[in-house]
C-alpha cells in the first residue's frame, strides 16, 4: 500500500483513541483532507524542485509504534548536551519517556503536547495558539492531522528560564520502519527568555521518517534561542517544519546544524508581526556520501523597522547534495527593513552538487535588502601559507573549513553547544582542531 493511502486509513484508527469531540479534532479532520487532496510534494512543485521524497517514501513505515520501548540513559548519554543542567523532554519512538525526561510546572510549563491538548487548564492557550501559524501545505497538514504528542513549552511574562530545554527524539529501531510526527508548541510571553535545543536520533539502521512541526510564538520583547542539532545516521530522514511568529521588539534566532541524516529538509518560516523585531537564521551543513540537506527559509517582513539576518554555510563531500532556497518578502508597509541573506558553499567532491536560490520579493522602497551567494573552493594561498609552516594538508583543510563555518558558531550563546558542534565539525572533517573555545 502506498504511504499516502496508509496514512489516510490510519487516520480512521487514530480517531478511535483520541477525543473526537474536542475542537482540535475538527482541525485534524480538516488537515487530513488537505493532505488527501495534495498528497506528498513532488519535484514538480517549485518549493520541492531540487528535493525528491521518492527514495524515503518507498518504505513501509509503521505509523503507530506497537509497544513502548525503553532505553538506558547511559546508552544515549552522548546524544544529550550532558555537561549542562537542563530541562529535558525525551521521546522514544514518539512516546514520552518519563525516566529520561525532566519536566516542570514550577513557574513555567515544560511538558507534553498530549497533556496540553487534553487538560482543560491549557485549553485557552491551545485555542489561541495551536495551528495558528503553521502553513496549510501538505506535509504540515499531515502532521496537524496526527498531532498528539510533542513538546509543550509555555513561559509566562518576565521570566528568564534558568537552564536550557532539550527536546530529544530517539527511535529504537524496534519497528522495521517508523514514521513519527512530533508536534511542538512553544509560547514565550512578554520579556521572557528561553533557550531550546532540539535533536532527533535514530539508534539503529532501520529507516525512520520524522515529519515534525514546531510552532513558536514570541511575544513582545521575548528572546528565544533555538538550536537544532541534526547529526542522525544515514538511514533517518527528517522533514522539519518550524513556524515562528514574532511580536514587536522580540529577538529570535534559530541555528541549524545539519551533519547527518539521509534526507533533511528544513522549512523555517519567520513572520514578523510587529516593529523593531530581530530575526536570525543561521546554519552549518557538512555532509558526505549520498546525504541530502535542503534549507528552505522564509522571512516575511510585515511591519516597519525590523531586521533579519540569514547566514548559511555548506560543505559538501562525496555524492551529497545541498539545497538552499531562501526567501525574503518585504511588504509595502515594512519600510526601513534591513534584510541580509548569505549562503556560502564549498564543494569538496566532483560528485557533490549544490542548488541555491536566494530570493528577494520587495514591495517597499525604503529598505536595505541584500543577498549574497557563493560557491567556491578553499583559498590556495591560505593552504600554501599553512603548509609552508608545516601544517599537514588535511589539518590545513580542516582549519580552513572550520574557519569557514565559524561565523555561524560565533552567535551560539551556549558554550557547551559551541564545543559540541566544534567537536562534530572536527570529526566530520577528520581533523583534531586542537584549540578550545
Amino acid at each position, binding site marked *: 500500500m502506498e504511504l499516502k493511502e496508509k496514512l489516510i486509513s490510519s487516520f480512521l484508527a487514530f480517531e478511535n483513541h483520541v477525543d473526537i469531540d474536542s475542537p482540535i479534532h475538527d482541525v485534524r479532520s480538516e488537515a487530513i483532507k488537505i493532505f488527501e487532496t495534495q498528497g506528498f510534494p513532488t519535484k514538480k512543485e517549485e518549493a520541492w524542485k531540487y528535493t525528491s521524497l521518492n527514495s524515503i517514501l518507498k518504505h513501509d513505515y509503521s505509523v503507530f509504534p506497537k509497544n513502548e520501548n525503553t532505553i538506558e540513559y547511559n546508552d544515549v548519554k552522548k546524544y544529550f548536551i550532558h555537561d549542562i543542567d537542563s530541562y529535558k523532554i525525551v521521546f522514544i519512538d514518539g512516546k514520552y519517556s518519563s525516566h529520561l525526561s525532566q519536566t516542570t510546572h514550577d513557574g513555567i510549563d515544560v511538558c507534553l503536547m498530549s497533556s496540553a491538548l487534553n487538560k482543560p487548564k491549557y485549553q485557552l492557550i491551545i485555542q489561541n495558539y495551536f495551528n495558528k501559524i503553521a502553513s496549510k501545505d501538505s506535509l504540515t497538514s499531515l502532521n496537524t492531522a496526527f498531532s498528539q504528542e510533542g513538546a509543550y513549552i509555555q513561559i509566562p511574562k518576565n521570566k528568564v528560564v534558568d537552564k536550557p530545554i532539550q527536546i530529544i527524539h530517539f527511535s529504537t529501531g524496534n519497528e522495521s520502519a517508523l514514521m513519527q510526527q512530533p508536534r511542538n508548541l512553544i509560547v514565550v510571553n512578554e520579556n521572557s527568555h528561553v533557550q531550546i535545543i532540539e535533536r532527533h536520533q535514530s539508534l539503529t539502521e532501520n529507516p525512520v521518517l520524522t515529519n515534525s512541526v514546531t510552532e513558536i510564538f514570541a511575544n513582545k520583547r521575548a528572546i528565544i534561542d533555538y538550536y537544532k542539532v541534526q547529526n542522525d545516521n544515514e538511514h533517518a530522514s527528517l522533514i522539519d517544519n518550524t513556524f515562528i511568529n514574532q511580536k514587536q521588539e522580540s529577538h529570535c534566532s534559530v541555528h541549524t546544524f545539519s551533519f547527518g541524516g539521509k534526507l533533511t529538509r528544513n522549512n523555517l518560516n519567520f513572520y514578523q508581526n510587529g516593529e523593531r523585531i530581530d530575526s536570525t537564521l543561521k546554519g552549518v551543513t557538512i555532509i558526505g556520501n549520498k546525504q541530502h540537506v535542503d534549507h528552505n527559509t522564509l522571512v516575511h517582513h510585515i511591519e516597519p523597522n525590523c531586521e533579519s539576518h540569514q547566514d548559511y554555510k555548506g560543505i559538501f563531500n562525496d555524492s551529497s547534495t545541498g539545497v538552499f532556497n531562501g526567501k525574503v518578502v518585504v511588504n509595502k508597509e515594512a519600510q526601513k527593513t534591513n534584510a541580509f541573506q548569505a549562503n556560502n558553499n564549498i564543494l569538496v567532491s566532483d560528485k557533490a552538487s549544490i542548488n541555491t536560490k536566494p530570493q528577494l520579493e520587495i*514591495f517597499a522602497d525604503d529598505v536595505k535588502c541584500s543577498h*549574497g551567494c557563493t560557491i567556491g*573552493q578553499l583559498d590556495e594561498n591560505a593552504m600554501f601559507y599553512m603548509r609552508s609552516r608545516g601544517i599537514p594538508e588535511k589539518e590545513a583543510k580542516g582549519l580552513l573549513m572550520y574557519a569557514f563555518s565559524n561565523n555561524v558558531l560565533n552567535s551560539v550563546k551556549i558554550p557547551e553547544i559551541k564545543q559540541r558542534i566544534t567537536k562534530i565539525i572536527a570529526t566530520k572533517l577528520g581533523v583534531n582542531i586542537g584549540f578550545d573555545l
Partner: protein
Amino acid sequence: MNKYTEDDLREELKTKEYEYGFYTDIESDTFPIGLNEDIVKAISLKKEEPEWMTEWRLESFRAWKEMIEPEWANVNYVKPDFQAISYYSAPNSKPKYDSLDEVDPELLATFEKLGISLDEQKKLAGVAMDVVVDSVSVATTFKKTLNEKGIIFCSISEAIREHPELVKKYIGTVVPQKDNFYAALNSAVFSDGSFCYIPKGVRCPMELSTYFRINQAGTGQFERTLLIADEDSYVSYLEGCTAPSRDENQLHAAVVELIALEGAEIKYSTVQNWYPGNSEGKGGVYNFVTKRGICEKNAKISWTQVETGSAITWKYPSCILKGDNSVGEFYSIAVTNNFQQADTGTKMIHLGKNTKSTIISKGISAGKSQNSYRGLVQISSRADNARNFSQCDSLLMGNECGAHTFPYIEAKNKSAIIEHEATTSKIGEDQIFYCNQRGIDTEKAIALIVNGFSKEVLNKLPMEFAIEAQKLLEISLEGSVG
C-alpha cells in the same frame, strides 16, 4: 528649483505619456485573424518558401497546439486569444526598393519622428539598417560594403530563398521548435526577421542594426533572427524597438538564435521600447521573447539590453557555453513604470571547461510596476574551473512598486567558483543631500544617481546605441536621466 522631490518625479512619471505613440497610416496586406494549418501554409506560400520550410513550420505548429502557456513567471495579465490575431501583415507598397527615394514617404516620416532618419543614420553612424516595418524588410543599406567582405545580412525570408543551406543547418539548433510555448508559436508563424552570417576570420566593419515596429492594429509580430558568426569572426548587432500607442494589447513573440563558432565573438545589444500601456495600465505590448546563443570553443557572446517598454516583458537572453574557454555575458537595465511588469534575466549554462560568465542586472521600478530578475547559472559536472559572477541591483521609487529576484544556482563541479550578489535600495536621502550640498538640485541629483546606477550596463552599449538608450530611458524616467 530645489523643491523638485522624488514625489514630483513620481507624479511626472505617472502622467508622462508615451511620446512615440503615433500611427502611420500605410495600407497593409493583412491576413484574416486566427491560426490553423492553412494560415501557416499561407504565410509560407506568401514568403515563397521552399517545401522543407513549410514542413518545419507545420511541425512547430503541431507541437505548439499540444503545449500550454507557461504560468511560472511573476507576471499577471489577460492571456492573449491566439485565434484573435492576424498572423501576417506587410506594408503594401511593393515591390522592394532600390533606393531610399522609393520608400513610402509617410514611412520615412515615421522614422524621422523616431529620430532614426535613414539618411542621417547612413551618414553619421555608419550603421547598416535592415528596417523592418511590421513584417517585411523595406530597405537595406550598406549591403555593398558588407557584400565585399562576404557578410550576408538580409531578411530571414530572403535568406531562406537564397542561402537555404545555412538556414537549414542552423535554424532551430539553439532554440528548438518545441523549446517553449512562444518559441513554438514563433517557429510556426514567424513572418520576417534578420539573418546574418559572418564568414571565417572576418571582423564586421560596422555595427549591424535592425529596427522592428509593430504598426498594424491587432497584428502580432513574430520575428525570427538567426545570427551565425563563423570561426574567429566578430560582429556587433543592434536591435531596437518602438511601437505606436494603441489600446489593444499587442503580442510580440520573437526568437533570436546566435551561433558563435570556434573563436567567434558576438555582441548583441537591444533597446526595447514597445508601448508600455497608459498610466492606468491599459494596453501595451506583450513581449514574450526567446533569445539564446551557443558558444563553441573560445567563443564569446555578450547580451546587452535596455528594457524600458512593454506592458509585460518575459525575456531571458541566455548563453550555452558549450565549448571550452567560452565566455557569456549579460548586461541588462530594466525600467518599469505605471503598471508595467517585467520578468527578465538570463541563463548561463556552463558545459565546457574554463567557461566564464558575467551577469549584471539593474532593475528600476517606479509607479505600480513589478520588476523581477530571474536567472539560472548551471555548472555541469564536466565544466571544470567554471566561473560566474552575478550582480542584481534594484532601485525602487515609491512604495507601490515591487522588485524581486529569483536566482537559481546549480553547481555540480567542485572547481566552480560562483558569486551572486543582489541588493535592493532606494535613492538615498544622504546621496541627494550630498549633491544638494554641492549645489546640484534634486532633479539633477536623481538623474546623476540613476545614471550612475545604470552606468555599468550603459557603458557596454555601442557608441551609436548608447545615445539612443539614453533617449529611451528619458521616456520612462523623464527628468531623472540627464
